């Protein structure tokens, strides 16, 4: 009888220990339980933002993180309003994709002032906050110009004539890309910018502009188009007029399969500047975990992850160069 009791007690103790253990294991499984991350993108619905959002959800929601998103659909004013209301809701972490360096600066400082750490992605605000992940548009612009220099500049035997197809002049990403291009081309005699026009993110306008420019300059060497969604228009004009006698088309974007790799594989785009959204999402997830579990407060340690600008072309294209939105949705 006594023996039995001892055995029972031992069994009970073991069971208790086991439960305790599994409880601890569960806490490790959901280290982010009860925490909230608020995300304000420039707009949902395109490859970059959909990529970050869905990858983060897939990676961090199983760990218990609650992710909320406020979609301003390209309106800076709406984005600012969303930030104001989010600041009063006090999420544990605020993740912001700035439309430009200035618009959200004051609000980001206020958020940090109220103790909400801010993680900025892909566009630095003039205010430094707890964390930053991303490449920058200036770097993309510079990379595009350097690619044009390499293929059209001195020693290439080409005319050096380049046409730029910008986004809207009010769009910061377009303005910063232009800044990068100007910096790379400054003082160069071998490259002539024969046309620099705005197509307003509209492929039809890009097609019309490139069509006209190609007719004016038979020896045009390259077209630099500021966004892949718009560059398909430039590509259509080039294909229509030049056939296989190629004019180099350089563009950039978020490396989603249908927008990028399909178009590189079929020869629509020649050089594609990119930052890998998958890598960025991994970086973001890592920083989110670090900030939330190590309880990093604004004003303390600064965390930075720069994403390298990669160039994808037909030669280095692989099955894994792009990510598929459908895998994450």
């Amino acid at each position, binding site marked *: 009888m006594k023996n039995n009791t001892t055995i029972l007690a031992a069994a009970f103790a073991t069971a208790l220990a086991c439960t305790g253990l599994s409880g601890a294991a569960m806490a490790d499984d959901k280290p982010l339980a009860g925490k909230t991350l608020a995300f304000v993108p420039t707009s949902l619905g395109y490859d970059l933002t959909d990529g970050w959002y869905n990858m983060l959800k897939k990676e961090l929601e199983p760990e218990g993180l609650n992710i909320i998103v406020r979609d301003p659909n390209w309106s800076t004013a709406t984005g600012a309003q969303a930030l104001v209301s989010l600041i009063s809701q006090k999420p544990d972490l605020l993740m912001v994709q700035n439309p430009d360096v200035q618009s959200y600066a004051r609000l980001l400082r206020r958020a940090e002032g109220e103790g909400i750490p801010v993680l900025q992605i892909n566009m630095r605000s003039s205010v430094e906050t707890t964390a930053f992940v991303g490449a920058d548009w200036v770097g993309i612009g510079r990379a595009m110009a350097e690619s044009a220099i390499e293929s059209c500049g001195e020693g290439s035997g080409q005319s050096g004539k380049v046409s730029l197809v910008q986004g809207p002049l009010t769009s910061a990403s377009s303005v910063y890309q232009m800044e990068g291009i100007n910096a790379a081309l400054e003082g160069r005699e071998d490259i002539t910018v024969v046309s620099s026009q705005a197509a307003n993110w509209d492929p039809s306008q890009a097609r*019309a502009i490139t069509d*006209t420019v190609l007719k*004016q300059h038979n020896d045009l060497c390259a077209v630099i188009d500021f966004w892949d969604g718009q560059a398909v228009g430039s590509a*259509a004009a080039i294909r229509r007029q030049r056939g296989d006698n190629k004019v180099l088309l350089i563009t950039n974007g978020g490396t*989603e399969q249908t927008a990028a790799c399909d178009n590189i594989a079929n020869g629509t785009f020649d050089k594609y500047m990119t930052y890998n959204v998958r890598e960025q999402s991994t970086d973001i997830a890592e920083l989110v975990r670090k900030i939330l579990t190590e309880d990093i407060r604004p004003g303390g340690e600064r965390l930075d992850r720069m994403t390298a600008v990669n160039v994808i072309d037909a030669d280095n294209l692989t099955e894994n160069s792009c990510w598929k939105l459908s895998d994450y949705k």
Partner: protein
Amino acid sequence: MSNNTVLSRFSKMQWLSLTQEKIVFLLAVVLFVTFSLTLNGFASVDNLLGLLYNVSVLGVLGLAMALVVIGRGIDLSLIATMAISVAWSLTLIRGGLSVEMALLYGMLLAVGIGVLNGWLIAYAEIPALFCTLAMGTLVYGFGRIALIPADVIYMPADPGWFGALGQGEVFGIPAPVIVFVLFALAATLVLRYTRFGRYTYYMGDNYHAARITGVPTRPMLVTQYGVVALIGFVAGLVTAASVDSMNTRIVNSTMIYDVILVVVLGGIGLSGGKGGVRNVVVGTMLIGILLNGMTIMNIEYTVQNFIKGAILLAALIFDSLINPRDEQTAQQGDI
């Protein structure tokens, strides 16, 4: 006083009967001659065909808009309808549906939106301006949530005959230009020689009088907006075929104003009952020549906007000097 002298001096020129359409046409001719003489390569056949190609979608949309504007309406949801219905069709094709079925679904969606517009305007008596403004937002939002996965939908690798709408040519003339010409011809015939056309003018001139005299104004409105949406869908197909994609971001752009501009610039008053296909063609030509010339000159975009605005204002000022509005010519409901 001096104002009066200026006016009377101008009104003496009325024997010339310079309508706004003629003024815009003259402006287009002047610009055309100037560009031909000063810009290398402007007057080449190749460039002129390119010029037509570049404005043909705008022209088709202008024809659609003209139809409702002549009936004293307006359709601000045109671009949203076009973008979402065509993007949905492309999504369906990419999902494995046959091209024909996918286009049929997209067309039904577009016409459905148009008919709903017409019904709300005719039977619920919501002013067209507000109804279509709200409808545009609704359609875009619904489309982005429920119908299409991303804001740019790319053409499938092999779109078949559908691709020829953008890239094809007949006797060297690009397909979009042919589509524009066909639509312009059809619209001329319908507006001039059919009952539907005449009723549209009656409604635009005086809606209530038309109704009293037995014009079926309500079914007419529903038909008008349905037809506009259908034309918009076709314009969208041409767009998608020529740039291998449909970018729904154009809904947030100023494209709808460009369409209205082409209509108003050509001389179709927003107060309705006036104008025809020729006005749209003239307006489209002026915009086409301007854009092409300024692109060749590589004028900076902000300066382009300034020049565009100045020329448009000049045409409007000139028109109001030559054809001043007074109690006799003004209509109730003039904007």
